[in-house]
């Protein structure tokens, strides 16, 4: 089985690569042929690349269908895996139910609350550490001590200290997001060029205005990097929280499907999680482009 799988991917990649290099060769060897011509080549290469990816995906799904249909048991137990067709059917059945959308709503809601809090706390802590030596001495030890603890490790304590599971899940999600944001903000603030601060001071800005007009704007690209990393951390922590102690949410949906032996729904849940998580990270990159048109 592995052989066949390797064969398929190999061929797919091989095709993509040969078209790409051929295209490049043509461009390189005939440089004087005008922009329209090379544009056509670029388009052709892009189209070929797209086709290669699509072919690879289709082959993958086909392989999945075949492996599961024929109940292969080779290292992995494929007989327990639902077929792609079954997953698609399950998706069609689930997408019209209220509970599915309620679960998505709850997960998104928790992400928004926890991530919003993480931005406020993380950015403030990062700026404080970067801008004031005293605050750094006060805050940094906590950051350095708590940061290495994975968000999942907080689950038992969170359940114990918060009155409701809702709050404990949000707090775990918050912990998953806050450290990358704080650290990247700190890094950005620390790297502010002295010359820019000097220029602002010579133009009459006081320390407060230097903070808002120089330090924070300079750190924004770095803050958005922290936010993108934090968003990944938030989803990771949210899923852990929802699976262990949740009552709603897409993580709960996935875990419940396992317990109810609705295996196709597990995969629907997984794919939904992947989609939501990449949409939220993508929206941060979109926000970044809107916020910092001056960078890059």
């Amino acid at each position, binding site marked *: 089985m592995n052989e066949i799988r390797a064969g398929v991917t190999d061929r797919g990649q091989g095709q993509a690569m040969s078209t790409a290099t051929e295209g490049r060769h043509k461009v390189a060897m005939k440089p004087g042929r005008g922009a329209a011509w090379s544009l056509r080549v670029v388009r052709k290469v892009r189209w070929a690349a797209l086709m290669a990816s699509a072919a690879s995906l289709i082959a993958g799904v086909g392989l999945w269908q075949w492996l599961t249909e024929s109940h292969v048991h080779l290292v992995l137990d494929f007989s327990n895996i639902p077929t792609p067709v079954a997953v698609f059917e399950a998706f069609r059945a689930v997408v019209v139910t209220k509970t599915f959308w309620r679960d998505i709503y709850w997960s998104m809601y928790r992400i928004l609350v926890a991530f919003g809090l993480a931005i406020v706390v993380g950015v403030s802590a990062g700026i404080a550490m970067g801008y004031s030596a005293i605050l750094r001495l006060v805050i940094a030890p906590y950051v350095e001590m708590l940061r290495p603890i994975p968000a999942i490790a907080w689950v038992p304590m969170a359940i114990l200290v918060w009155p409701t599971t809702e709050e404990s899940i949000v707090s775990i999600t918050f912990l998953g997001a806050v450290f990358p944001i704080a650290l990247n903000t700190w890094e950005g603030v620390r790297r502010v060029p002295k*010359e*820019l601060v*000097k220029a*602002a001071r*010579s*133009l*009459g800005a006081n320390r407060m205005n230097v903070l808002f007009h120089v330090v924070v*704007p300079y750190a924004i690209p770095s803050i958005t990097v922290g936010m993108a990393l934090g968003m990944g951390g938030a989803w990771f922590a949210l899923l852990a929280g929802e699976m262990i102690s949740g009552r709603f949410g897409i993580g709960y949906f996935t875990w419940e499907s396992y317990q109810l032996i609705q295996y196709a729904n597990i995969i629907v849940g997984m794919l939904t999680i992947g989609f939501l998580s990449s949409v939220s990270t993508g929206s941060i990159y979109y926000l970044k482009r809107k916020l910092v048109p001056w960078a890059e």
Partner: protein
Amino acid sequence: MQKVGNIDIRSLTLGFKNFGSTKAVVEDFSFKFEAGSFTSIIGSSGCGKSTLLNAIGGHYKPLAGHIFLDGCEVKEPNASLGIVFQQHTLFPWKTVTENVRFGPMQRGASKAKANAVAAKYIEMVGLAGYGDYYPKMLSGGMQHRAEIARALANAPAVLLMDEPFGALDAQMRASLQSSLLDIWKETHLTIIFVTHDVEEAMYLSERIVVMSRDRGRICEVFALDEPFPRNKDKLFASEGGRDLKEKCIGCLA
């Protein structure tokens, strides 16, 4: 009315801590820059011109000695002490207009007024039409001109310029030199102008201070009595001019 912009430097010593030991760059420097005067400082690379200028602007704490602006010791940067730095220091996240109006707005001018001031100086440095550009969209020389506009728009009492025209082509340099002289005549601000170019110093300034590489000591101070506006050809062709240029270059060597 008493003139403002008097800089009085008394036995100033400046230096940097390097690996624990302190190395003096400028030692026992004393000089008076009269209010409304135009003084050039020339000296070989690394002799401490930028260090001195930054210190006058309030950015370095002297190891010894004092700097007074109109009788008050300079302890902090301050809007009366405008600086055009040797490095690029435009704020990348602000457009040219936003950069230039930053000073006036920090001092409490309304946005409309600050915009008007900014437009005036942007035009003066030949960047009209580039107001909405971000610094990364400008060439190096254009960025330098925007920086000059930003310093001027703040109407400082003293203008400290660190090789401001070094990166410009001859034509732009000549045009900005004459704009600078116009502004100087109009506003009577004190200008301290660091340059590598002896001819530029001779064309612009009333006095030329030559710094030596030996701990920033003043080698020589030349006074130029030639009235403004000066004619470059005549200045450099005249006996006195040629003589002065030779002396300056002799000092630098």
